[in-house]
């Protein structure tokens, strides 16, 4: 039996004339994100079958629902959200059937140039950092920054560090990084301010693959040292 989902006050805010933002919480929190995921799933089913309703976009603690105001009235969309919230608020009735995706990682060395610094700043050995990072089953809370970048949580408290003071201009694709209580995989060569602790050969984003994104919001992930 899952823990009861938090039922804090939900705000529905206007996001322009053609979208509503459902705010379910004000922090990065696994239970709140759980509710985000279920609300997104329910709204996604509606959107797939309903003219004028756009695909919902989840973030940590909120869901954006675009709609075509030339087709649907805002009040009707608010009603749909209320119905979906009721259904998404209680404990999940179905087992979570999402498989766990294993991501092989080469930690440290040239693949993880910040591993030593992370170890020093958290007062642990490099082996300890790797063990802690790889011990947790993560969830994709949301995606963004660039296509396919997963914001995964939650990293063990012991490893929580603020972002680097000066972001790198060039982070190689496949880099596995941490910041605060989150971890992610860089899908492409981009600038980046997270601590690079390892690298994977599994591309997080490949436009020639179907689907291009390795992960999606709600996916379960484990990092496996190789």
């Amino acid at each position: 039996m899952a823990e009861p989902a938090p039922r804090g006050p939900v705000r529905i805010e206007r996001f322009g004339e053609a979208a509503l933002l459902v705010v379910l919480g004000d922090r990065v929190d696994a239970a709140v994100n759980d509710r985000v995921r279920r609300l997104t799933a329910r709204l996604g089913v509606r959107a797939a079958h309903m003219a004028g309703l756009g695909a919902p976009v989840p973030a940590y603690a909120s869901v954006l629902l675009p709609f075509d105001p030339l087709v649907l009235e805002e009040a009707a969309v608010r009603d749909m959200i209320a119905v979906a919230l009721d259904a998404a608020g209680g404990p999940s009735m179905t087992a979570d059937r999402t498989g766990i995706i294993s991501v092989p990682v080469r930690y440290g060395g040239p693949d993880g140039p910040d591993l030593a610094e992370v170890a020093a700043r958290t007062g642990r050995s490099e082996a300890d950092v790797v063990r802690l990072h790889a011990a947790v089953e993560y969830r994709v809370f949301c995606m963004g920054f660039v296509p396919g970048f997963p914001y995964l949580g939650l990293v063990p408290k012991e490893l929580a560090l603020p972002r680097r003071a000066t972001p790198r201009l060039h982070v190689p694709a496949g880099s596995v990084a941490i910041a605060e209580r989150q971890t992610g995989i860089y899908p492409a060569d981009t600038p980046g301010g997270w601590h690079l602790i390892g690298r994977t050969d599994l591309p997080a984003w490949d436009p020639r693959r179907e689907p291009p994104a390795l992960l999606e919001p709600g996916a379960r992930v484990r990092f496996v040292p190789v």
Partner: protein
Amino acid sequence: MLAVVDPGPLLTIQDAGRPGLGRLGVPPSGACDWWGLAVANLLVDAAPGAAALEVTFGGCTLEAIETCVVGLGGADLGAERDDGRPLRRGTAHRVPAGARIRFTGAERGMRAYVALAGGIAVGAWMGSASTYAPGRLGFADGRALQAGDQLAPRRPGDLDAVGSVWPVRLAPYPADKRGPLGIVTGPDLDAAPDGALEALVAAAWRVSTSSDRMGLRLDGPSLGPGNEIVSHPLLPGAVQLPPDGRPIVILVDGPTIGGYPVLGVVPAADLPRLGQLRPRDEVRFTPLDAEAARAQSRRQHELLDRAAATLRADAIWLRLADRAGG
């Protein structure tokens, strides 16, 4: 068939974009000025959201490899033939083989659209031909077009559209409108400093030179730092308040989530205007009720539909006249 001789600062293929993929971190992309794209396409009997060229600023030169017809929409970027003959926007022009089209730049507007008969023949990546480099989506792995690239029409040899003219008095370009941009307020006014919205509306802003298809940075008085919020999804038109207090307006290639407070969202009817702003242009905002924004959108789509119907009727008469021997 058109060849790129000189792409200018940025030349890409754009269509109506790929909305609905925000959950994967993929922005909608597509034409910055969706109306300008629709005009160019409708002139050459293509779907309003078909793939066309988005020309940025001046400096682009194209050459016809085979005789073709091009529809010009969006900003008037001083297009002319290499013999100096001006190519008016809002018109479908015949470009004979070997002739060149130059965009010499102009006083106003940022992006022009060049459409080919039936649209540009190009593939789709996640449902759209739009170029989006960070996702490697679009023609040639999402890179901008370069000298030597060639673009073919879906209906090669079809010159029927030559001479079509956009009924501009019936359906004027939204980007030609003057006056403040609308802004539907919210959702994060609670996280903004007191009076930030009033100050946003009171000030005259200047578009910063560090603006692109991802967003417009606005120079002007600082509105004060917003409180950091838990990142939430974003859409084009969102006006964010970063720590330096100077607003950023998200455009079509912009981030799909963000942690700066959003003071308001520029409505769809004004997005073509946003897409045509150039560095140093002045920008003002005025709060707009959501219902008023929807009414503007409805009116805009009605005008586009009527203009498209007018073009179709004109095309039938043109063809009949041709067959009757002129």
